[in-house]
């Protein structure tokens, strides 16, 4: 079972190492970890997806909360979440298959962001399931390269 933790941290050197080190020490398997600035200067936000049950996720959140540079951690898994993943996919597409690939991209509401001689680069945003579905279909044409940004998540509404 994967759990989504949202952490607000001070934007200081070594914070990522502290967070990742703690997860390693407490034997937590990180599925994805994204970090970036927030609207507040000096504060970064992490979305951490871990493979664990609810109880262990609560424990790791408490341990993370003890880190001096961690402002707050929440296991947001069971809250109404908008969770998105970004993927760039380079797929083989020459004369014959190009139109077909572009049609699939349209269906998945993804975008073509680069056109090569015999390949297309596609940008897809959505849940992991959606991205996975797109990749599965594109594999029949030959996926040459792929990169994913990891889950970012936010709780709906205002608190």
């Amino acid at each position: 079972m994967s759990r989504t933790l949202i952490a607000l941290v001070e934007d200081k050197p070594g914070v990522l190492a502290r967070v990742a080190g703690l997860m390693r020490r407490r034997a937590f398997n990180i599925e994805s970890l994204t970090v970036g600035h927030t609207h507040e200067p000096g504060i970064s936000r992490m979305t951490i997806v871990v493979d664990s049950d609810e109880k262990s996720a609560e424990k790791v959140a408490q341990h993370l909360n003890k880190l001096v540079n961690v402002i707050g951690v929440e296991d947001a898994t069971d809250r109404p979440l908008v969770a998105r993943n970004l993927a760039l996919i380079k797929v083989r597409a020459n004369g014959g298959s190009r139109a077909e690939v572009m049609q699939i991209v349209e269906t998945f509401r993804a975008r073509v962001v680069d056109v090569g001689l015999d390949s297309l680069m596609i940008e897809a945003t959505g849940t992991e399931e959606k991205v996975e579905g797109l990749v599965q279909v594109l594999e029949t044409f030959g996926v040459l390269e792929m990169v994913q940004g990891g889950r970012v998540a936010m709780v709906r509404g205002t608190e």
Partner: protein
Amino acid sequence: MRRSGAQIVWEMLMHEGVDVVFGLPGGSILDTYHCLQEYDIRHVLVRHEQGAAHAADGYARASGRVGVAMATSGPGATNLVTGIATAMLDSSPMVCITGQVSSSLIGSDAFQEADVTGITLPITKHNYLVTDVEELAETIHEAFYVACSGRPGPVLIDLPKNVQQAETDFVPPEGEPRLPGYRPLDRPDPEVLAMAADLINQAERPVILAGHGVLMSGTTALLKKLAEGMGAAVAVTLLGMGAFPHSHSLSVGMMGMHGEALANKAIQGADLLVALGMRFDDRVTGRLDAYAPQARKVHIDADAAELNKVVRADVAILSDLSVALDELLGMVEPVDRGQWLSRIAQWRVKYQGGNILHRPHNGRLAAPYVIDSLRQQTDGQALVVTDVGQHQMWTALHYGLERPNSLITSGGLGTMGFGLPAAIGAQVAQPSREVWAIVGDGGFQMTIQELGTLVQENLPVRIALINNGYLGMVRQWQELFYDKRYSATNLVNPDFVQLVGAYGIPAWRVKHHEEMSAAIAEARQESGPAFVEFQVSREGADGNVYPMVAPGAALDEMIYLPEPAIEGATEGEWPA
């Protein structure tokens, strides 16, 4: 005031109320040491940096203030590591200041460069690499605040040489540091506290488990009130010893693997455990699924991560213990628990025979008698510092601690070599108290070089060496659980009296029971350091710590002192 980074270190140490630093200089911390003489701070020069860390830890535990250790970069800093981990596991407030190679060299594998903040990341409460002298004063201020607030712990500051040399206008920082992610202590949730009070008032067979947190929060008086108000038995953890007077009628002694049978019986028979400032270490619970099977659990701790970590609590209270206990006292109703207390009184009589001191003496010199003699002669009032192993458990079982903050020992990490340097720190913190370092022959030799520190500082630490010529606790496990195959536990030791004598320390050797008391009495007369070696039973019933809960066994499945006691024992005699 224009000051160099090196001067700011000492200015800030003075500012934080530090009067002693334990350390050893080297290339990358030379600039800071160069300014030491300008400031009114005592420096204790150790022989190995591990000694500095343990001494700072011992100082912290004996004084309740932050202990400070200083070392150079690379090997100096890595030598601190065992001491830092020891302080981390036992929540001891400590600040370590390490030199680092100049900023421009960091990452280049320069001479004596090690990634010290990386290495100590998982064994410090927090650590810092200071790259700008402008941030130094604030960082030191913050480090002291973090080390001693909330659940205390070690903090390390890594200080590159160029930052020590750089100058700036020094303004001492005031007030609480701004740390948006740091919440040192919480107040109890009144609703949850009421639930705890309900469980307490309903309980028929309550046992209070008192841990290190009781001593660190200074709540021993509140604990006594609570126990007496409830009519509850009180068991203590190893680090909680002294939180409740051992001679009190409600005391059932130390719990756990080498705890007293009475304590473990009471816990297993309880219908309510009230755990205060303790963390259900595996050495305390025994087999977890058989732990206190009939008991509901109330757990109060200052650290949220400790609640429900090992044992699921029926009521978990995140709080500063002093506030929680104070409020709880007003909610506890007087309940007659005479039946429970009389059952405990019966157990007390029944299990007394398991104590070797209550058996007929066989004439051999055995460790429990040494500890008992120490207790009698010091009236149980000494500040006792132990190393790790059999002697540590014998001390816990037989010294009968009456006073708070009178036992300093490495509980969580179980660091051999802790005893002597920690005793040095403790004596520096408490110059007028009688300090006994009780050590084994294995652990003593891990930091034996600190005898030099002891002599240089002329500290009146008394050392009792419980010598059985073995890594005794390991040998005991081999005897009981590994087919008596004594793999790599026999020690060929030096003549300790000669060795210690070479440092100029008065030293006695005791081989016979009859000589024991007199040697202790003589050592107590010395105005400086003194040393007594006790060549105790090496093997057999009087060479083992009893009772014992086998690893993986339930807390009440204890191995008791064998019957018939130890009459005519000849096992493991010392060679003539």
